[in-house]
């Protein structure tokens, strides 16, 4: 199979598990880690099911997050509601391209890419699509690393709500979209945390074993 490391021992095959918290390697029969007391398991429990469930929730939340206003601005008695996309267009029209790109990647691109990347990872771990575990491992690592940066939009709302309190002149209040968007970010972060990249290698191992047995039966 592509990219599988041959003749290298994997911890689970030896009955050993690395603790998720303190990284001590101990026999799975110990049940709890002898060093830090965390429950030991070979793979994150129910990894793919949990990831998919959290991701579906995130995908559903993504719709109100983009439709509902994340904040409303009342300027001289006139109220305008601003969604993520309109905020982005404002920056683009004001010719602040770098900041528009930052906002675009943090609040639209990263959540979408994250959802797609996790679907891809789950499909690969289930063996639905062929994959190279090395590359997908990197994809997972990046997904986990970038997730937090989507929160920037929520912080911008928080800062504007605090600072733009100018009585009759201009007032900013948070909108329901902010809650939905924060939900998307938190759910995708939990989804990424519950995925176990070791499953990608398990799938490759399974495929290699199947190919081996097929070869044997052909020979017979």
């Amino acid at each position: 199979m592509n990219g599988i490391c041959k003749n290298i021992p994997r911890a689970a095959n030896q009955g050993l598990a690395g603790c998720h918290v303190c990284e001590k390697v101990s026999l799975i029969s110990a049940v709890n880690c002898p060093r830090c007391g965390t429950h030991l398991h070979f793979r994150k429990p129910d990894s793919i099911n949990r990831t998919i469930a959290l991701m579906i929730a995130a995908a559903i939340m993504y719709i109100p997050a983009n439709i509902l206003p994340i904040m409303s601005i009342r300027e001289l008695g006139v109220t305008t509601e601003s969604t993520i996309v309109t905020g982005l267009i404002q920056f683009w029209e004001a010719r602040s391209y770098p900041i528009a790109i930052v906002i675009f990647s943090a609040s639209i691109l990263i959540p979408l890419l994250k959802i797609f990347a996790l679907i891809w990872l789950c499909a690969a771990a289930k063996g639905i699509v062929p994959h190279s575990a090395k590359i997908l491992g990197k994809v997972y690592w990046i997904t986990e690393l970038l997730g937090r940066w989507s929160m920037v939009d929520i912080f911008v709302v928080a800062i504007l709500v605090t600072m733009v309190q100018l009585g009759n002149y201009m007032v900013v209040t948070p909108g329901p979209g902010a809650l939905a968007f924060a939900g998307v970010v938190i759910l995708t972060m939990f989804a990424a945390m519950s995925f176990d990249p070791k499953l990608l290698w398990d799938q490759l191992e399974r495929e290699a074993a199947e190919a081996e047995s097929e070869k044997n039966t052909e020979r017979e």
Partner: protein
Amino acid sequence: MWYRRFGAVDTTSRSNEITRKKLRTRLSILSWPKPKGGPHHAVCHFCDTLHVAEPIPEGSRVDCICCGATLFQNRSASLVRVTAFSVTALFLMLVVHSAPFISMDAGGMRTVLTLPGAAKALIDDGSLIVGCGVALFTIVTPLILSGGLVYVCGPLLFGKSAPGAKMVTRWMSRTEPWNMIEVFLLGVLVSLLKLGHLAELHFGVGFWAFAALMFCMAAAVAAIDKRELWDRLEVAGAP
């Protein structure tokens, strides 16, 4: 044997070798100790490959032989650095919360931004959950992280473990992904650009303290390998 050995990647430069050696002998108690027993193993987080984790020189790193992800690294002067940076971070947090962050003059009025103020404004305007989230990600988690690092690593400098150190360390590894100081700083920059044409903005001491806090937190967290911290706790005899 069913495991394979591998070489460590040495990243130290030769010119630093002598000063490093001097430092190491002086701080001999401070280099990464290994708990009794062995051989010690390390499992790759990504591909589950089993390795034998042998002691490596300070400043070097070990990568997984199968997938190439970093297994662990032996940071030089790790404990001293963690303690120094996290103590600094705690002091900076005091400054961030007490000194003015950014103030804005517009239409004869002045508004001031503070971290708790941002969370409070959201809660007052009816976004209770988002407000609590902002408070959690920018105030509570950095406090748990840096306070926890001081509490755990300070006594470890003298080879002792503080009561409940293991519980605190567990909590730190749980809260680490939710520390969003650097994201908040990006948010500040974006909103400054949004407000820049609208009003006159003044950067307070709090803002610069916040930027420094971001660096200190990042340096403190990166200064020690998780595995080293737990090994040290085990050697110090934490219950």
